[in-house]
């Protein structure tokens, strides 16, 4: 088995995740080939890697080229071939066929996909390809989001998974989360179910109100609909669809793409990548934001929601009194407070429910905790249990939301630890 990674070939290096992950490799002294359909595309990726590192020096570790001129040399030399091409089974399989023809038998091949079935991807490839094939799912931007979900498929040599775990952790400073090869792995499985719930509530409460209610004060860097704008509504829909196709659990019915999102997609309102068309938000030249109105399909002015319990909770967070802020949320009356509690309950319940399905049982809640913190900068599920006052209070909250209380939550003691620097997940806005 390959024991050292000195050279890596990044396929799809013109894209964000390919170039930035390749940049992290270069920052750590690894020689990296940036490959894409054109040399110019790869060069754009290199520029992105330089900007990420804030140093021209990393460019010395990167060689740019296209699939025609450099593929054979790069994939033939590489100790690790990191595939970051478009999320399309046919495209990836075609790429693997070409890789298999030129790679060394001991080189590692990984995909950044978390959505396509991992068993299917290497089918038809050589025995050594399959034994060395796994998924390394990086989060974006990798300079700030350190999570990397790692899993093999049936034919992957466990020694390869172990080797990559150590390399990712020690050399690339990733927070490695061993996951099971279930669709969307752990992080996206949890987060996108939450996003689906929130997009459905937009029809009742509106974009501005939903991002106000489930805003950063509830334990996230960015409000959820703003996050979907960042990800792209097309990607959001694809992930939800993928989860619908390949998962089946007690929360399955919550995996919805409301009709208004289909209309947004048809109108090219994909979020930040279609800035002029907008997404949930539309930024005017003046810097002012308008909000998508799901009923009319137009953009409307904000009205600045002001709800007492939210303001009180935010003020307590401003003062570093995090547990007290969550008591405000727990004890507040009114529909809006019920909505916040329902979302928190869904997040906690779903995370605990997935222990054993997306991560190994032996990790308890900590596997999912780590990916939500290091992949999304969300307060992790067990931290929220702590904030709410313990697993019994969390169980009550979940029951009040009409959800089943996962067995793992009832017996969990993770939440009892002291969460150092946990305040960074709660933003007073």
């Amino acid at each position, binding site marked *: 088995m390959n024991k050292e990674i000195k050279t890596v070939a990044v396929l799809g290096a013109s894209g964000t995740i390919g170039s930035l992950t390749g940049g992290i490799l270069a*920052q750590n002294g690894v020689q990296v080939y940036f490959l894409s359909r054109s040399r110019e595309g790869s060069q754009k990726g290199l520029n992105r890697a*330089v900007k990420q*590192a*804030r*140093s*021209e*020096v*990393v460019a*010395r570790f990167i060689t740019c080229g296209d699939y025609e001129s450099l593929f054979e040399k790069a994939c033939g030399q590489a100790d690790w071939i990191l595939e970051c091409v478009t999320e399309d089974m046919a495209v990836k399989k075609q790429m693997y066929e070409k890789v298999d023809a030129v790679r060394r038998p001991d080189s590692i091949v990984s995909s950044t996909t978390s959505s396509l079935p991992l068993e299917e991807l290497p089918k038809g490839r050589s025995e050594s390809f399959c034994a060395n094939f796994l998924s390394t799912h990086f989060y974006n931007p990798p*300079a*700030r989001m*350190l999570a990397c979900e790692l899993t093999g498929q049936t034919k992957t040599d466990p020694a390869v998974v172990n080797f990559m775990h150590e390399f990712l952790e020690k050399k690339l*400073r990733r927070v490695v989360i061993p996951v099971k090869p279930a669709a969307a792995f752990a992080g996206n499985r949890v987060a996108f179910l939450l996003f689906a719930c929130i997009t459905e509530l937009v029809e009742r409460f509106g974009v501005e109100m939903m991002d106000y209610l489930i805003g950063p004060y509830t334990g996230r860097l960015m409000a959820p609909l703003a996050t979907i704008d960042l990800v792209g509504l097309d990607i959001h829909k694809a992930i939800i669809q993928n989860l619908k196709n390949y998962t089946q659990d007690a929360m399955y019915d919550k995996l919805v793409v409301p009709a208004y999102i289909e209309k947004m997609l048809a109108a090219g309102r994909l979020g930040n990548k279609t800035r002029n068309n907008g997404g949930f938000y539309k930024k005017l030249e003046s810097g002012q934001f308008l909000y998508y109105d799901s009923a009319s399909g137009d953009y409307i002015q904000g009205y600045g929601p002001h709800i007492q319990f939210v303001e009180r909770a*935010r003020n307590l*967070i*401003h*003062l*570093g*009194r995090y547990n007290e802020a969550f008591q405000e949320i727990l004890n507040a009356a009114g529909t809006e407070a019920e909505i916040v509690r329902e979302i928190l309950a869904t997040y906690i319940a779903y995370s605990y429910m997935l222990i054993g399905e997306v991560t190994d049982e032996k990790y308890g809640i900590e596997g999912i905790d780590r990916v939500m913190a290091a992949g999304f900068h969300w307060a992790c599920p067990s931290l929220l249990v702590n904030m709410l006052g313990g697993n019994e209070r969390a169980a009550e909250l979940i029951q009040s939301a009409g959800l089943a209380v996962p067995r793992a939550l009832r017996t969990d003691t993770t939440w009892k630890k*002291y969460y*150092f*620097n946990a*305040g*960074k997940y*709660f*933003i*007073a*806005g």
Partner: protein
Amino acid sequence: MAPDVYILGGFQTDFARNWAREKKHISAMIREVYEGSIAVTKIEPKDIRAAFVGNFAAELYCMQAHLGAFFVELDPVFKGLPTCRYEAACASGGVAALSAMAHIQAGVYDVIAVIGVEQMKTVDAVRGGDFLGIAAWYERECAGVEFPFPKLFGRLGDEYDRRFGVKAEHLARIAEINYSNARRNPNAQTRDWYMSFDHACGAGQYNPAIVGRIKATDCSQITDGAAIVYLASEKFAAEYARRCGISLDKLPRILGWGHTTAPVEFAAKIQDSQSDPYVLPWTRKAITDAMKRAGLDSCWQLSAIETHDCFTTSEYMAIDHFGLTEPGKSWQAIEQGVIEIGGKLPINPSGGLIGCGHPIGATGVRQLLDAYKQLTGTAGDYQVAGAKCVATLNIGGSATTNVVFIAGI
């Protein structure tokens, strides 16, 4: 002989955080660092007899003064507690700790919480740079100067260059070592930043010259952060050790200290030192005073140093002023690997102000906390093996206030 003063541990916030972006009040930082310290040290709040807070300029950065009083907000048990805020520019944390030590030695209090805190990311770099100017003689040295402190510490490099010669690559190596050490420190501001010797040597868009010989990589960071340590009398420390199931001699003590103040203006300091072998004799005196009080004959009796590398030039100065080399030959210790973790006398295993970060008023306390961690074997990946004696140097202004502690077990 003065009674022993023990260090019972403490806590620091994650220096990578931006508390303005988190929309937090500075009291939130005090609260978090305090709550973290209670979780770590298991000190009973009721046992704390006073709280001293080191802070440089919260009036400017946060429109908030009187930070000592905010300790009382942390727990109802603190109502009525004596508190005070201490200010000596970048040595604010150091003088707060000195005062706490003196109060304990005088038998006034048994246990004092010493906090250092600064929130700096509330303003842009130019405005923040102007605020820092008040740590020098503002009217004479800083008014109208965009980045006064890089200029002042650039002049320190110039003086070394004039007397002995200084090579840019030695300063670059200091930066590289501090960033490299910071990668081992989970609370360091730059732990995930890219750095290499070539980057530190280079100049350009991503490593611009700030002023003179000082480039971006030669500078410490603009940092939000707080640190806390508990200082205690022998009587309380013995009881605490018994409660924790450890022997008293495993708890670090302050073995020696030094405290000097030089003329405020940098030019006056340099003028005074023309006939002295050391470029900053008052800094040297604080070090030698501390060594003498600790009963040390030589710097080689130290296991590690946490020094005030506000710029690479100030660490360059600390190397010869601590006695690792003859005056002007700091480059030898750099070239020989003496100051690296694993070297003969590691400097800034934490990453120092360049790597770990420099929340002005917190730095002196953070250094003392790191000394405690080294001495108790709890520094994790940046542990110096077998550390028995650690020195800290915390300076305010252009090496105007100098505070040195030597702690040991």
